[in-house]
């Protein structure tokens, strides 16, 4: 059992988190504000980029789920002080991590579906583009949930966490070409931004959707980096959850 994963309680904790999050409708609505603000900036200042920004908004929303995982995990541990109770219960650490990340994914999906509907009206996607979009969004969710969960365990108070949470979402979501096309990035920086999960995902989807052109090698680099990062990070998240449970 040393290396085996225990999934006891996953379903129950997932359902609990979904229910808790759906009660936080205000948080779900306000989660759309930053991408909404950027969409408005683009609609006013550069309307020709709106389809790229809508795809960016979907990717950013997935990354924002990590920020919500960060806040929720910190809230459970610091404010509610429920972690010890969870660790003493039959709920396994992996189930806790997957439950919290999955709960956030389900709860925060409705605004993304709304954005998706607008995208489908303005720039209909092919079947392949849909598949690539779904795969990329899941990969970004896996990476961001892990980052959010791991970061949440590093702090002792809620107030300290917020700046880091804002820093991460800005560094991964606004600076790289998530809301804008990769052609705006200088050539020497293109490989680097393709390695980032958010911009890699956005560029891949934009490329398959016919919104921008990248070379075959760039597509392979972005896809391989995203696949490796998502699997490695999610496995690390599970390892970290088990480690956190062991130490307390």
């Amino acid at each position, binding site marked *: 059992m040393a290396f085996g994963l225990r999934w006891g309680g996953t379903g129950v904790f997932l359902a609990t988190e979904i229910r808790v999050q759906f009660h936080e409708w205000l948080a779900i609505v306000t989660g759309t504000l930053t991408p909404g603000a950027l969409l408005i900036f683009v609609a006013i*200042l550069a309307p020709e980029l709106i389809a790229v920004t809508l795809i960016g908004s979907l990717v950013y929303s997935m990354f924002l789920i990590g920020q919500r995982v960060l*806040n929720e995990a910190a809230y459970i541990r610091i404010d509610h002080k429920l972690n010890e109770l969870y660790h003493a219960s039959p709920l396994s650490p992996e189930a806790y991590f997957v439950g919290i990340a999955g709960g956030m994914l389900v709860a925060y999906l409705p605004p993304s579906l709304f954005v998706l509907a607008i995208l489908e009206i303005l720039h209909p996607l092919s079947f392949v583009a849909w598949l690539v979009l779904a795969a990329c969004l899941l990969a970004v969710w896996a990476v961001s949930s892990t980052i959010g969960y791991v970061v949440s365990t590093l702090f002792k108070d809620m107030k300290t966490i917020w700046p880091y949470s804002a820093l991460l979402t800005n560094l991964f979501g606004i600076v790289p070409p998530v809301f804008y096309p990769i052609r705006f990035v200088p050539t020497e920086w293109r490989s680097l931004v393709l390695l980032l999960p958010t911009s890699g995902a956005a560029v891949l989807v934009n490329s398959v959707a016919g919104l921008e052109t990248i070379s075959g090698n760039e597509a392979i680099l972005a896809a391989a980096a995203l696949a490796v990062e998502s699997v490695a990070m999610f496995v690390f998240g599970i390892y970290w959850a088990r480690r956190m449970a062991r130490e307390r």
Partner: protein
Amino acid sequence: MAVEVNLAAQPQKGHVLAAWGLIGWRWIWRSPAAAIVPLLQPFFFLYFLHLISDPSYFPLQVAGAMIFSTQNIGSWCLSDSAVFRIELRLQDIFVASPHDKVRYLFGVAFSNIIPALPALVALGIILAMVTSVSLTAWLVIVACILIIWVLYSAIGIAVSSRLRSQREVWPVGNLIFTLLGILSPLYYPLSRLPPVWRELAQLLPATYAALLVQGSLGLEPATATSLAIDAGLLILSTAIGLALAWWLYQWRER
């Protein structure tokens, strides 16, 4: 056993701003990200806007970022005030102390402008590099920043006094301050907004602050009369906003 305390014999005065200033300084000293993030936040937006929009708007966007950063102080005041009351349970001590609610408001606002100052100074330097700024324009910018700082800090603290849980801090703060930031034409001229939105924006103090700053910098066409009207409307809308914040503000539990 209750103990009789002669309150009149206790110290009734203190250095409120200095004490809160120390809290603000200690906070950024102990948590460097708290200093770095407010410094970077306006630049993230500026970077994005610089990429997607006409370069001629850049000076206007830098000036807008100064007002946006000041507006955001309200969000930090909301968060701080909520942490003091809900997590640290310090509100009873504040209420019981000679430190009244106006001093508390200015104290929290003062401690939160400290992390924002480096960003404001950096934006001011960039503004001076990208456009010519007269002494009058600097005075207008500083006055607008001070007005927006007091108003949005008061809104943040007033809203925070109604929150029941830490969980509400992020969504409520984000809703109010992001929405107010988007609605006001801080990063583009008012004329670029659709008609209904333009009318809605004209209800907000930050809109008049932006118009005043843009007009005094010569970035948007403005006459002395229109600037005077904008200044009057800024003061009027700020007074209404402060009255609303005062009404909403719950200093002690009922």
